[in-house]
């Protein structure tokens, strides 16, 4: 039972055009943002399968970048996320692959992001209807369900490494 609430079905409130290729991807980006405690300065993003074929039409690239910049699914600035990366100083690169070797689903992405000394590698899958799942953090398998009503910061806190808190103490 991946879907746990009526709001997984009626919702999220989001900017279009696709709940799986836009909204669910914003959430994956936002999770990375929370893992790093802010926007990364560098991100290497791999889109697999359906994501790699149709990302332009669905704004999947804008959605992921928007999430990395800390936006939520209903943020109307997502449309301008590519332009906004300049202002936030986020450098990014997209790669496109056929099948995801880590998780069997057409809507998968792996993001390796760096903010100062902090580096995190996150694998996410967008299940449909705006619901997402993080299946990998730093090459370890995890199973974290992300619904847009969740408090991502609280969830990410459980998975942050000691390095994260060391870096926070040093004032990243």
């Amino acid at each position, binding site marked *: 039972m991946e879907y746990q609430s009526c709001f997984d079905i009626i919702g999220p409130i989001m900017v279009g055009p696709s709940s799986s290729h836009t909204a669910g991807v914003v959430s994956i980006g936002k999770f990375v943002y929370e893992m790093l405690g802010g926007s990364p300065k560098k991100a290497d993003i791999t889109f697999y399968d359906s994501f790699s*074929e149709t990302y332009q039409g669905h704004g999947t690239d804008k959605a992921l970048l928007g999430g990395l910049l800390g936006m939520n699914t209903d943020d109307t600035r997502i449309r301008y996320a590519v332009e906004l990366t300049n202002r936030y100083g986020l450098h990014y690169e997209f790669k496109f692959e056929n099948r995801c070797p880590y998780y069997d689903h057409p809507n998968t992405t792996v993001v390796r992001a760096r903010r100062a000394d902090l580096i995190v590698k996150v694998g996410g899958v967008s299940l449909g209807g705006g619901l997402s799942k993080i299946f990998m953090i730093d090459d370890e398998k995890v199973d974290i369900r992300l619904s847009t009503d969740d408090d991502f910061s609280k969830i990410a806190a459980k998975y942050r490494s000691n390095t994260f808190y060391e870096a926070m103490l040093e004032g990243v």
Partner: protein
Amino acid sequence: MDFRSMNELTELCTRERKTVGEMMLMVEMEKSGRDKEMIIDMMAERLIKMKHAVESGVEDGSPAPSGISGGDAVKMSEYVNNGKGLSGPYINDAMTFSMATSETNARMGVIVATPTAGAAGIIPGVLFSLRKNDGTSYRDLVMGLFTASALGYVIANRSFISGAAGGCQAEVGSATAMAAGAIAELKGGTPEQVVNATALAMKSLLGLVCDPVAGLVEVPCIKRNVIGTSIAFSAADLSLAGIESRIPCDEVIEAMYKIGKEMPRTLRETALGGLAMTATGMKLKDRLLCRNT
């Protein structure tokens, strides 16, 4: 308390003497720990966002960023308001409102996924048509959203709701089935009739592939939403007339799942087959790629 199948859902409704919508609300209260009013408020917020998307879509004749959609809701609205529609006011208004919502979605405007953004037009379309044509109260429309979500909840957990996973039958098919059930309940149908309407609608869309031109949620998605509303009303009518689906709803959902599993990757939201690969579909894609680079 929870339900995993349509069968369990109707049994639970009978046992607790609740409608499908009320049952969803009860389950949500128990699972989330939130109180009833808060959950109703959250759903009402979604209904309001849907209304804004309909209103802006009916008035906004501007094209989507792609340039391949936009402006049709304005045309449909004028046609219907001139009294020219053939399908009757319920279906005609639902067509206009679903077109408006799906066009708003293509413009990257704010919509509510029901259950997905690609299928976001159908449920608001039928609900605001009921509102316009028989004055259904906001409170009832919110309950209609709980009905729709109960049905979608079963479908999503037993099958799929994304085009990439199961084709358009999983998106427009699921949304149309949910809308049919919601109409049936708002018009006084029993939980059995609600589930039956869901089965009838879904059967009509089994096998529908996801073949978006240039990978955009525009062609053919927007018009499939529009026509989905007429299937939803037809299925609700059949069910309220006492006509039963020979195949029970849970088995229809299982069939949808199996069909989706057998569907080739080219027909599951990759834009590598179907309408996406027609001469015109390819031409539109090339034109867009030229513009983007």
